Each structure stands twice: as C-alpha cells, then as structure tokens.
C-alpha cells in the first residue's frame, strides 16, 4: 500500500487522503481544532500546520520573517519554511512530513495556541467541556507558557440561547466553524453562520430562526471547546466522574452506536454520545436518540405488581405461574418486545415453546418521524430481530384484541408496555388476563394481573438487529434499578418455577454479562470523533 513518512513513521494512505486524515486513521495525533473526519475541510484554526520537506531537487518554499533579537534590540531578517495545514494537503507517495520533529512546527503550534487563548474567559471551573477540552490538552502539550497580552480580553455575549437544546457562549468560541459546517452539510439546514471579523467573530443564527433541527446536539458534540453546550447536560456532571459504556441507541431501527456516560457512584446515566461506525451511523446521532437516555430514569416500573399493588418478585412469580399453569396453551398469546434485546425475546420464545404457545404478537412504539439522514420511521430497535427469531411476521395486534374480546385468547404473556399498532399509541385498555414484563407503564401494564419490572437497555448487555439486518451488541452500564432485572433472567425464573429447563441464549453476539468489546464497529472502539 502507498505510504508516506510522518516524522519517523511510515503511514499508509488511501488515494484522496489528506495528511491529517491518513494520520488519524493510523492513530497518530496531529493537533487540530477545526477538522472533523465527517465534515469538509475548513483549515481556519491553523493548528495542524506541518512542515513538508520539498521533493528532491526543489528548494523549500521559504517566507521572509522578522525575528526580534533581545541582545541587539532590533529585528533581524530571517527566513522560515512555509508550513502547510495537514488537513488540507493531499498526500503523495514518498512525501516527508515533519510534525513533532520540526522546531518550526512546535513554534507555530505554540503561537496558534497562544492566540486562541488570548481572549478566552477564565471559565474552566464552570465550563462543561473541562476534562475533554482541546484547549486544555493542547495548551499543556504544546505551549505551556503564559500569554504576552496585558490588555483586557474582548467581551462577547455569553449564554446565548440558540434553541431549545443548545446554549452558545461567544467568548469561549474559537470560530472553528465546525458547527456551521455540520448544520449545512450533515443536517442539511444551514441555520448557523459567522458574523463580524477578527476577534469580534461570533456564530449567529439565521434571522428569525432557532437552532431547532433534529441534530442540534451534534453541534455540541463537534464543538471542540465549551462554546456550544447542551441545555440537557449543562452543569449536571463533570466528565471525569463519568464512565462510558459502549451501547446501541434504542430510539429507532437505525441502531446508531453510542457511548452511554454514567456515574458509577450514584448509578445514574447522564448522556449519550455517538460512537463511530462507518456503516451504520457514521459519526452522528439524532436528538431524539441522544435524549433517549432520560427514559432510563423516568417513568419506570421498579417493583413487581400483582393486581395493581406492589408485591415482591417471588409473589408475582407465583401468581404468574398459577396463571400460566391454569390456562390451556392454545389460549395463551405471546407478545414479543421489539424494544427488547435478542436475548430477552429468545428467552420468551423458549418459554412459549415449552408451554406450547403458538400465537405471537409484537409490542413496541408506534412509527414516528423519519428522514433520510439517520432517523428511521420504526421507533423500535429490534423489530428485525424479533422477526428473525420468530422466523415470520408477528400477527397484527388488532387480532389479539379481538381474540381477547371473543374469548379465543384468555391470557397474554407480554414483553413490553404497549402493543404495536400503526395508528396512535396502541389499543385502548385490553381485556383479559395479562402477565407483563415491562420497563415503563403503558396500556399493556394497566390493569394487568402480574407486572414484572424489566431493566432498561443499559442495565443489561444485549444485542439488537437494526433495519439493515446487522446485529449489534450493547454493553451494560449501570446496575438494574430498583427491583428490576433483565427480562431473560425473569423468564428464566418463570421457567424454573414451572419446571422447565432454563432458556438458552440465542446464537449471535454480545450475550455475556461482562462488557466485551462489541464487534460491530469498524475498529475504532475507543475513539470518539469530537
């Protein structure tokens, strides 16, 4: 494969690559602010400047500069090589690039860093980006000196509300234009642009508009400093207390790969971030998915319910066993959960097979908004997985309601909170007896005889099959909240109580409780693309 030399290393590159892109792919870091692998090249931060040695036989391009000599107390004319931005310079075979080994590059980086911090407010103690801020990291590594300016820094608007999700701080902004380019190129909604020039530069909204498209939280993700902050995460948690679990978003059938950031001390999830996966979601996630983590802590069923009253898990299981044993198998309807993992659904299918259940329906959220960027109309992560396990389409939910009213079904064994239906929220209160394993309250759990609390997707490892048919595994982050447990464990307890063998995990990935590196992403498992 074609290679070029970066410092003393040989780096492979693909045709069309720039120096920075090839280095990024090889895992070598050239400091940068405004470049992003998923966006176009702007080359306005000038932090990635590198020295390009000229091809043999040609002289290097030099610039005339003046250097202050403290002994002679005057300026001396000198020449220094012209440095090129690595994000813009395309790579050729045999190119020689100096990044760390060049003194000019080090001086350039120190100078850029000094200028970027010149008017920067002393906000680290209150800035959410502290701990994952490039200004902090690059200052320590590349400049580590005080700035020479003695004037008052420029003051600009702070805490400008851009929209329902994003707050902008103009003083912290380094005007890298990543947010502008993102809104234009990826979200296809050019609502942000620049205003003024020089050190008065700031980001503004288009007149009369708010930052309200479906990918606004991605602007906060791409911002390398704390200029754009999410209202949802602002002042909630410090990032060095958060651990990241590699999960899959369960907001829709796209199955974007995500990091779930949680604090292990109080077992709370604070945010999602996208995880890079070139085939599924690239570098991005939609707002609905990013905010989906709130469902983990709100409106949860955390205790078992028997006839609507709190009970212990063992009494709920006893009641469920009594119901299941007392009903002929032809009259039991099973409901698989399109929001639940492969392992949970496989366990329920197994129990159904032991009991002789043949009628299978599906629970899940109704269809929602779709677009051609990332959002899929099917708002359930595992619909394809359910079909794969079942081997066929589940029957339509209206058939179940009719069957319960007519008497051909007496008992429903359900995984999920509401039956899937094309219109609205699912059918109104359902007659008949029900045993429901669910995370949230819903039409299925209302008035059910037995409700067993299921844990959310971050509390147990599992795998989900997305709309393209790719099975992706998701790690567990926090311990199950309250009394909840993974559905496959609850079904296993039911099997044991009924005297059946325990369910076998389905063949596929990600079925161990301990965190294993999911095999679905392209190899950049630890890298976040911000």
């Amino acid at each position, binding site marked *: 494969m074609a290679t070029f030399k970066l410092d003393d290393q040989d780096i492979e590159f693909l045709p069309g690559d720039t120096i920075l892109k090839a280095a990024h792919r090889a895992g070598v870091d050239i400091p940068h602010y405004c470049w992003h692998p998923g966006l176009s090249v702007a080359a306005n931060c000038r932090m990635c400047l590198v020295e390009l040695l000229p091809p043999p036989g040609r002289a290097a391009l030099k610039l005339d500069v003046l250097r202050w000599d403290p002994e002679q107390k005057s300026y001396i004319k000198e020449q220094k090589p012209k440095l090129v931005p690595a994000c813009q310079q395309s790579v050729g075979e045999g190119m020689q690039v100096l990044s760390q080994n060049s003194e000019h590059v080090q001086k350039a980086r120190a100078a850029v860093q000094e200028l970027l*911090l010149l008017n*920067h*407010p*002393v906000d*680290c*103690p209150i800035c959410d980006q*502290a*701990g994952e801020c490039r*200004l*902090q*990291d690059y*200052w*320590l590594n590349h*400049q*580590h*000196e*005080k*700035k020479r300016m003695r004037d008052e820094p420029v003051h600009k608007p702070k805490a400008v509300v851009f929209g329902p999700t994003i707050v902008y701080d103009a003083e912290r902004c380094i005007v890298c234009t990543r947010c502008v380019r993102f809104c234009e190129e990826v979200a296809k909604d050019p609502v942000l642009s620049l205003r003024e020039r020089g050190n008065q530069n700031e980001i503004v909204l288009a007149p009369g508009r708010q930052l309200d498209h479906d990918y606004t939280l991605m602007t906060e993700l791409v911002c390398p400093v704390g200029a754009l902050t999410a209202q949802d995460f602002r002042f909630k948690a410090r990032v*060095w207390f958060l651990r990241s679990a590699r999960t899959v978003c369960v907001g829709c059938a796209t199955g974007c790969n995500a990091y779930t950031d949680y604090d292990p001390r109080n077992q709370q999830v604070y945010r999602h971030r996208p995880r890079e996966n070139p085939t599924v979601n690239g570098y991005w996630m939609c707002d609905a998915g990013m905010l989906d983590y709130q469902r983990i802590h709100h409106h949860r069923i955390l205790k078992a319910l028997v006839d609507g009253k709190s009970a212990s898990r063992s009494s709920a299981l006893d009641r469920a066993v009594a119901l299941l044993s007392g009903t002929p198998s032809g009259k039991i309807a099973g409901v698989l959960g399109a929001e639940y993992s492969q392992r949970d659904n496989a366990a329920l299918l197994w129990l159904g097979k032991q009991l002789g259940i043949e009628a299978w329906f599906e629970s899940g959220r109704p269809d929602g908004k779709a677009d051609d960027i990332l959002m899929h109309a099917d708002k359930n992560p595992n619909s394809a997985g359910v079909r794969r396990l079942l081997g066929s389409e589940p029957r339509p939910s209206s058939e179940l309601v009719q069957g319960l009213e007519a008497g051909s079904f007496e008992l429903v064994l359900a995984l999920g909170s509401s039956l899937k239906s094309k219109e609205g929220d699912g059918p109104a209160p359902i007659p008949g007896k029900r045993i429901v394993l669910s995370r949230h309250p819903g039409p299925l759990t209302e008035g059910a005889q037995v409700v067993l609390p299921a844990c959310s997707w971050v509390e147990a490892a599992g795998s989900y099959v997305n709309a393209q048919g790719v099975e992706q595994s998701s790690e567990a982050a926090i311990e199950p909240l309250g009394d909840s447990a993974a559905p496959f464990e609850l079904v296993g307890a039911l099997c044991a109580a009924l005297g059946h063998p325990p369910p076998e995990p389905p063949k596929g990935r990600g079925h161990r409780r301990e965190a294993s590196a999911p095999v679905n992403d392209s190899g950049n498992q630890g890298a976040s693309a911000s």
Partner: protein
Amino acid sequence: MEPLDLDLDASEIELENEPMLLNIGPAHPATHGTVRLVVELSGEVIQRCDVQIGYLHRGFEKMCERGNWTQVFPYVDRCNYVSPMLNNVGFALACEKMLGIVVPPRCQYYRMILGELARIADHLTAAGAMAMELGAFTPFLWMMKVREMIWDVFEEETGARLTHSFGRVGGMARPPTESFVEQVGQVVPHAIQVLGEAERLLVTNRIFLDRLQGVGVMSAEDAISLGWTGPTLRASGVPYDVRKAHPYLRYGEVDFDVPVGEHGDCYDRFMVRIEEIRQSARIIEQCLGLIPADGPVNVDDPRVVLPDKQDVYTTIEGTIQHFKIVMEGIKIPAGEAYSYTEGGNGELGFYLVSDGSGTPYRVRIRPPSFYVTSGLEKLVTGAMMADVVPCFGSLNMIGGECDH
C-alpha cells in the same frame, strides 16, 4: 500440716521438659512498634523465634494506584513516620528521575537540611527508646526534648510536626520561611549539646554496656545476605552509605564521615546512630552556609508544578495548568525506575512503574526496616530472653515502614 508430697514417689512427679512457647505480642511495653515474636524458650535461652509483622499493614501500595502521583506523598510520609521528610524526598527524587528534571539548588539544600533534621529525629528516637527499654528513662526524655525542638522547626516550615507531606514533584510545597536558617542554626548546636549529655549518662554505665556489648552480633556477610543497609549494616563493618556511594542532591559537595562499627553487636548499632547524629549536624551546618538566600524552590516546568494562585484566578493559562495538574495528575512518562536514597534505617528505594497517565501503575516502597527486621530471628536465636529487648531496639523497626 504435712508436706504435700510426702506420699509421692520421685518418679511420679513429671516435670515438663518441652520448650515453652512465649508470645511477645504486638502490643508490648518493651518493644516499640507492632511486631509479634513467638519464641520457643528452654529456660531463658531462645531456641526458635518466629517474627510476625504485618500488624500495621495499611495497603499503601494499593492505595497509591487509586490517586495521582502527588497524592502519594501523604502515604509515604506515614511509612517511616519518625523521619517523614526523608521519605518525601526519596519519592520526589524517584518521580523526578522519571521526569528527567533537576530541582533548583535552593530546593536541593532545603531538602538536605530538612532531611538531615528528620534523620536526627529518627536516630534520637531509636537511641532514646532503646535506652528507655533497658531502664534508662532520663536520656530518653532528654532526647525527646531535642526532638521537640526539631519538630518546632518542622512546624514552622511545613505546618505540621510529624506527617507534613511537604515534598512535591519538582520542588517543595512552600519555600523556606525567613527565620529558617536562623532557627535551624540555633537548634542544631543545642541538639548536639543535649545529645552529648545523654550519651555521657549511658556509655560509661556498666549495666548498659553489659547488656549491649557482645549481644546480638551480626557478621558482615550475614548482614549483606539478609539485605541489611543503613546503620545496622554499618555497625557490622560495611561502610555502605547511599549518600557517599551514589551521591544525590548535593551530598557530594558537603563534608561528612560515615561511622562504621567493628563488632556488629547492639552497642555498635547504638553508637553508630549516635555518631550519625553528629555527622548529620555537620551536614546541616555546611548546608546552612551554602543555601542561596533567594531563588526559586520549584522547578520551572508548568507540566509538573502548580502555578501561583494569582495566576489561577486571573488568567486562563493558570487555570488550565492548575486544572490539568490537579484533575489528571502529573503525567510521568511510561516506564519503570528504581530510585534510592539513604533513609533513617538504610536504603529507602522506590520502584515506580508508570503507564503514562497521571495515576501510578505501581508504587513499590522498598522498606529498609523490613529487611532489617527479618534478621531479628537470627540475632535472637540462641540468646537469652532479656536480650530480645536490646536486639530489637537496636534494629529500629518502624512499623509503618516495615508493614507499609
């Protein structure tokens, strides 16, 4: 009343002739430090001895892996808690070895003076406690009085008498106070004078000499094989002092002698410590003349040393520097290093393994008194019960260091 044994035949009286197992438990008035000796006695003679340590094990090495490099300083303080400055200096030098930085001369002399003061305190405690355990309470109290004066110096400089956590990677926590040179210059001659008085009480005392001379003899080969270093090794005749053999800080520039014993008995170990106090006083006096009156105490590297609070509150660079050093820790390059200094009891070594992040991967404290205490079994076996006290006292086992 009739004699009780009138009807007993001599052959029916069975006397035990098995060796007696005696427990000199972890809490004992005559052993300073938490160590348990299980001795097997035959009459007064010790036939076997099992030295059991670990009563003060606090898991320092495990705890060091859960913080920053700077957060290790309070832990090493509590290792040899009678001379904590020497531990601080040793660890700081180990970190600086891996970082490749050398502290400014003012800091080097400052560390030397405070370190030697701590060494004097350590040796005073050891000698005084040993005398006290033999029954001489007065010299012990006089030496404690001197130790209080040394601790007054530490309190003035660092804010704490004993566990001050004053060392930092790249310098010290604060520069010397204005009264430092004067105060130390008054304390040291007074200390030597009181030491002379206390020593005169002891070294001509027949009982003291009888209990120490010829007791607990360790030959040089055995001492080296056991890993002994420091005053106990020097008492056995081996002139090995890390300050002379591998000079660090400015020990190569000051003049001092290394006292070496001849017989390797408890008396030699006691006298070596007394003489070392005098040599430490010599070092301190020379350093007081050599320490620069002003100049930086910390090395000028923003990746290692915290900035002034003024800068932290008013400039972004100061904030970032403070933030990175405090939240993420000093980033010591990945690799491993073993750095050694002369602690109160011998070669105090730090074997550090770093993975490049601000958290230590492994901090191994090589405790000199661990190896010295392992020799107690050899010293005491075949000796009499009463010899345990001076033997153990002469080893100066510091529980915090031995058990870390």
